[in-house]
């Protein structure tokens, strides 16, 4: 990256600046397979135009004929969209739309470990794609809810069928959504928050 002193880096518009009172941020991860609506969901609720942070991953070539040398490296650029919602003058919420493949997750330190929770976006045309994502979240102990996008040509299943197919415990919420609509995306996030609150209440004896 080359910077010249004359370079003017476009930053946030004045109206997009956080107040000086902003003390701390929390994050929620929106995770799901290719084309499932992660970017759409981030964009529909964000108060800023969604931004993208990129990371480059270098991988040693695998399964390549040894004659061609086993030290071949490929660089993959992985992009993650994110948006922001100001909660109070002090607290800010960030939403990260994260690729479904776990091999990308470690690129961003603390992305899942520090998140309040996750939304798994699932597409009933390719439900298997969410299997691995859900499994990884379970292994990492990240609390999550499942939001099923109602794509027009997608098969419709009852929530009970989905619960069985996804092998989810009774308490894990499964909701339908159309994340192109802000209210729908907000409801999904609210479902996650209610779930996290219930978990917290269960863990804290009164």
């Amino acid at each position, binding site marked *: 990256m080359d910077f010249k002193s004359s370079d003017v880096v476009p930053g946030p518009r004045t109206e997009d600046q956080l107040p000086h009172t902003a003390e701390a941020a929390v994050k929620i991860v929106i995770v799901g397979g290719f084309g499932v609506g992660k970017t759409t969901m981030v964009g529909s609720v964000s108060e800023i135009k969604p931004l993208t942070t*990129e990371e480059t991953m270098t991988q040693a070539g695998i399964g390549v004929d040894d004659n061609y040398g086993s030290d071949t490296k490929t660089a993959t650029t992985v992009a993650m969209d*994110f948006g922001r919602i100001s909660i109070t003058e002090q607290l800010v919420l960030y939403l990260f739309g994260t690729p479904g493949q776990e091999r990308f997750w470690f690129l961003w330190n603390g992305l899942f470990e520090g998140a309040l929770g996750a939304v798994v976006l699932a597409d009933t045309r390719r439900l298997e794609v969410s299997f691995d994502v859900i499994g990884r979240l*379970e292994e990492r102990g990240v609390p999550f809810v499942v939001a099923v996008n109602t794509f027009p040509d997608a098969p419709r299943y009852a929530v009970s069928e989905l619960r069985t197919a996804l092998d989810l415990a009774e308490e894990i919420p499964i909701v339908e959504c159309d994340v192109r609509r802000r209210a729908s995306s907000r409801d999904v996030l609210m479902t996650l928050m209610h779930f996290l609150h219930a978990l917290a209440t269960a863990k804290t004896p009164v």
Partner: protein
Amino acid sequence: MTPPKRQRREPHEHLPPPPAPAGKQKNPERLFVVAGPDGGERDGDLDLVTLIVARADPPPSATPEQSALLRLCTAPLSVAELSAYLNLPFSMMTVVLTDMLTAGLVTARAPIVRQAVADRSILEAVMHGLQKL
């Protein structure tokens, strides 16, 4: 038509638990802690949502990259946003910022991260904020 079927998984025993709240063990009510550069305990461990604030105008010794960054964060801005505006990968962004923190050019406001026992007031604040959307 029946959907395909998944098999449930258990939490990995060997995965490290979320970081323990530094010096806050005596309060089991707290599920979220402030961890990060200002906390001492996780020094230099910048999160995507650590908020960065410029402490001063760019000194003459500042590199062009540092000057650009200082102009961006006259108001608090997350590491993720800085990475997006400066078009720098997150890993490079943290290297640049760690230097600048050491040099006292910026300050960091640590995020609130998930902990084993949750701070319900944070969750309630988020719920209240979402309601207004």
